[in-house]
């Protein structure tokens, strides 16, 4: 950023610094996030930029490594003197990254730190740009199940979650609610992120004959678990996975036996919010396919930052950042995932929707108000 | 201090290397241990020095039981040895090879500089006595077989052992030097050191030893001064050939 004394009507581009896991464990969603940011920069610049300045992204690869992500933001803020920084992907990387931003006094809006631990660090400059945190992802599903007559409710549930703050957050958010209502947990398995052999976990789940299966998964682990369960011919009445089912590859990966599989989502390309139409259109033009959740979250992040910058009228390091932070704390922002507002810890105040594979497509089934298809229960065999 | 073993046994799988070896090597003597190839001499040394654990039997040194002691403890108790297949520290100079035998006591001793003047002089002295003083700065790996053998002996002597076990000291050593080694052993013996020498060079054995023990199949079959052994029937049959 230029010195405060200079004219604010500079034509220099606004440098936005980002570190992303473009290689390593989180590289797939990381690349999705990258597209979202790129779409945001392009769409905004095409409309004349922010404060009349063009947006320029500087993206570094943190190799999915927490040490690297810190060094990256250190470099972006200290050496490249980025005017703004936005967050990386995944809770594991968001937390250390946010600390750097915090200690340099930078606004830090992030697309993918969904787990509740992100908000218990005492960060004052952090905002999660999505409707709800991990534990609340299944709220609508829990409501729906508990509203069923007692004899129709699933009686036993098997949980299997990756040892990852986000994945466990989603599964245990649901588990807490179902257990409170007296629905029995018969299997509760946790597996490390690098697990590739799911046969033992599947064997346990299959032998429990649980009515319902909840997978706290990112992507591939969910697929692997399903295939292992298919090998053992386990047929639950309901199956919900946090990460996998929204992925475009999902259906093929499990042999197209997707019917009835559930998943929470914070975003739908068909959502009626005003900016969403523009986003889907332009994104599709730019990348040749419709955006999914990761892209949308990054775009949302950009929208939040842009709203603050426009409102406050500055984008540079120094005092400006404090003003930006204060503005976001005090306002509601219209985004592609709906209007967002945050509490003091940066936690968003909304809820996720529930999607289900119905007739070979993934459709929103809950909540009632926005549903695109009827909830299928019990789920057909896979 | 005398070195004695009682009923020492050691088997490797099916091979009985030591089969109840009861032997005493008296203090102050030059003892020889001879026997055909594979009769268990090296194994005997290995058991005595703790390098391998005997299956049963006891080893005493100066009356103390050292059967279960660690090799370094036995070395510190005063028993030094050389190896049949000559072992030196290949990437260390001759000087460091010899200095490595200095055994520091306690923390302060351990942290004292390795090239202590007096010790360097002593090391140089041993190298000279063995006729390889000109190799002092040469790394051991660059030495010929015989040179390495002499270096190993220098290292052992640097540790000032009261009892020295030599496993084939003459193997591969030039005869001219062998005379020196013979003389050296006699001098050191005169200074009060006890020797146990495993050797196939009968000229050397007969000329320097006071007492000879003959092994066959892991146990002693004869014992006595050279004059007696030279003519012993069993020895001739088992070892010297007739």
């Amino acid at each position: 950023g230029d010195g405060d004394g200079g004219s604010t009507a500079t034509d220099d581009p606004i440098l936005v610094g980002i570190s992303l896991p473009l290689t390593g464990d989180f590289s797939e969603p990381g690349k999705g996030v990258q597209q979202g940011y790129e779409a945001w920069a392009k769409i905004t610049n095409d409309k004349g930029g922010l404060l009349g300045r063009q947006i320029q992204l500087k993206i570094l690869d943190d190799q999915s490594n927490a040490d690297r992500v810190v060094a990256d933001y250190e470099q972006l803020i200290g050496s490249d003197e980025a005017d703004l920084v936005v967050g990386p992907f995944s809770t594991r990387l968001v937390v250390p990254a946010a600390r750097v931003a915090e200690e340099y006094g930078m606004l830090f809006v992030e697309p993918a730190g969904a787990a509740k631990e992100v908000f218990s660090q005492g960060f004052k400059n952090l905002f999660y740009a999505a409707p709800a945190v991990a534990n609340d992802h299944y709220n609508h599903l829990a409501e729906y199940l508990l509203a069923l007559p007692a004899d129709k409710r699933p009686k036993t549930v098997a949980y299997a979650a990756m040892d990852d703050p986000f994945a466990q957050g989603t599964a245990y958010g649901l588990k807490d609610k179902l257990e409170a209502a007296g629905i029995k947990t018969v299997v509760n398995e946790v597996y490390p992120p690098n697990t590739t052999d799911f046969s033992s976990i599947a064997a346990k789940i299959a032998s429990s004959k649980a009515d319902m299966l909840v997978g706290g998964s990112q992507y591939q682990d969910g697929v692997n678990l399903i295939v292992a369960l298919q090998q053992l011919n386990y047929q639950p009445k309901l199956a919900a996975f946090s990460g996998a089912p929204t992925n475009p590859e999902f259906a093929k990966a499990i042999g197209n036996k997707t019917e009835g599989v559930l998943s929470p989502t914070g975003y739908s390309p068909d959502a009626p919010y005003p900016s969403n139409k523009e986003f889907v259109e332009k994104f599709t033009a730019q990348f040749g396919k419709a955006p999914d959740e990761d892209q949308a979250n990054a775009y949302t992040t950009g929208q939040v930052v842009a709203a603050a910058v426009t409102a406050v009228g500055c984008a540079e390091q120094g005092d400006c950042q404090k003003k930006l932070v204060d503005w976001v704390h005090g306002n509601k922002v219209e985004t592609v995932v709906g209007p967002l507002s945050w509490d003091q810890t940066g936690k968003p105040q909304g809820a996720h929707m529930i999607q289900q594979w119905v007739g070979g497509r993934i459709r929103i089934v809950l909540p009632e108000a926005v549903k695109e298809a009827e909830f299928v229960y019990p789920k057909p065999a896979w | 201090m005398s070195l004695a073993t009682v009923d020492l046994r050691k088997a490797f799988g099916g091979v009985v290397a030591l089969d109840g070896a009861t032997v005493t090597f008296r203090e102050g003597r030059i003892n020889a241990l001879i026997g055909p190839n594979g009769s268990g001499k090296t194994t005997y040394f290995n058991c005595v020095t703790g390098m391998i654990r005997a299956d049963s039997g006891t080893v005493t040194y100066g009356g103390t039981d050292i059967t279960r002691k660690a090799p370094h403890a036995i070395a510190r108790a005063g028993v030094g040895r050389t190896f049949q297949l000559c072992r030196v520290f290949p990437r260390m100079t001759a000087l460091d090879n010899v200095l490595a035998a200095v055994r520091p006591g306690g923390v302060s001793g351990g942290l004292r500089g390795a090239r202590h003047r007096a010790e360097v002089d002593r090391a140089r002295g041993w190298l000279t006595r063995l006729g390889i003083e000109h190799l002092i700065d040469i790394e051991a790996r660059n030495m010929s077989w015989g040179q390495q053998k002499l270096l190993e002996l220098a290292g052992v002597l640097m540790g000032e052992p009261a009892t020295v076990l030599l496993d084939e000291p003459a193997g591969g050593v030039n005869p001219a030097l062998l005379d020196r080694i013979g003389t050296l052993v006699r001098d050191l013996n005169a200074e009060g050191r006890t020797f146990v020498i495993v050797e196939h060079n009968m000229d050397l054995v007969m000329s320097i030893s006071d007492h000879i023990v003959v092994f066959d199949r892991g146990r002693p079959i004869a014992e006595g001064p050279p004059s007696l052994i030279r003519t012993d029937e069993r020895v001739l049959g088992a070892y010297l050939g007739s």
Partner: protein
Amino acid sequence: MLSVSRAVGLVVLAAAVLSFPGLAPNPYILSAGIVVLNYAVLATSWNFVGGFTGYISLGHGALAGLGGYGTALLVTKAGLPSFVALAVAALAVAALAVPIGLAALRVRGASFVIVSIALVLILLLVFQSWSSVTGGSRGLVVPRPFPDLLRPEHHRVFYYLFAGLLALALLAWWVIDRSRFGLGLKAIREDEDKAEALGTPTFTYKLIVFVVSAGFTALAGGLYALWFGDLDPVFQFSILTGSYLVLMALLGGVRNLFGPLAGALIVGTALEYFKGQFGNTPLHLVATGVLLGLVVMFMPDGVLPAITGLWQRLRKSPQSSIREVSAADLQTERQRAEVAK
């Protein structure tokens, strides 16, 4: 004894290290300097075991991780002040190194390498699974020791702390290197059984130096944790970290006091550079692999020895390795010596 050129070199080195924070153009460069210093301390600590005894440990990353977690847990769970926690954690890791060493140092060569790899993997499993204490894969946040310092200031303070730790580690290595204890360790490297037969309590020696190494490694790991603030088992207990240390030490030269430091400088800088160069691809791994391969193939003794060797060769014509004396010469020489007595 320090020669003049050595002393001058030392002063220059110290001056260079100490003046770096003043010269660093921005806090990022300073933080990169801290990372390199941290590597230097770790590689030097590794070299207590690797350099003296020749036991190649790919598991030192785990000891650093233990130091980091130990410090963090003592701060967060026991409420100790940061630097007290650091000291206690280092002592605890050193103490823990005793049983670890008792198990691991029984084996040599490649088996030791395997054991050291196993150490990392088993600790990774434990720290990932035992989430009630370690936080599991959610990681552990280490409170800042100087909460009021701005980040650039914070970096500066830690830079000097790391420099001090490095000096301490180097001093300890130097003392051991020239000591009898050190000579005993080197004898172990050359031929362990022989050293034992000469009266060196090899196991005790190995254990002592392993504990010292573990202590320094834990100090570096703990200090890093205090500086960095976030611990994640996947990154704390990684074979890659341990291997980078080995690469650094080897690259610089394991028999050389400043070898690991030189290696850390080169590798640390190279890692930053590769990252800049191949930012978006995993080619940095390829580059690191190639670098390691080149070192192993062409400079197995390290850069510093290679340079000194070259220097010596330039200065002197090839000398014969053995002083030449014929049997007759030796004989006369000895006779002369005997007459002189």
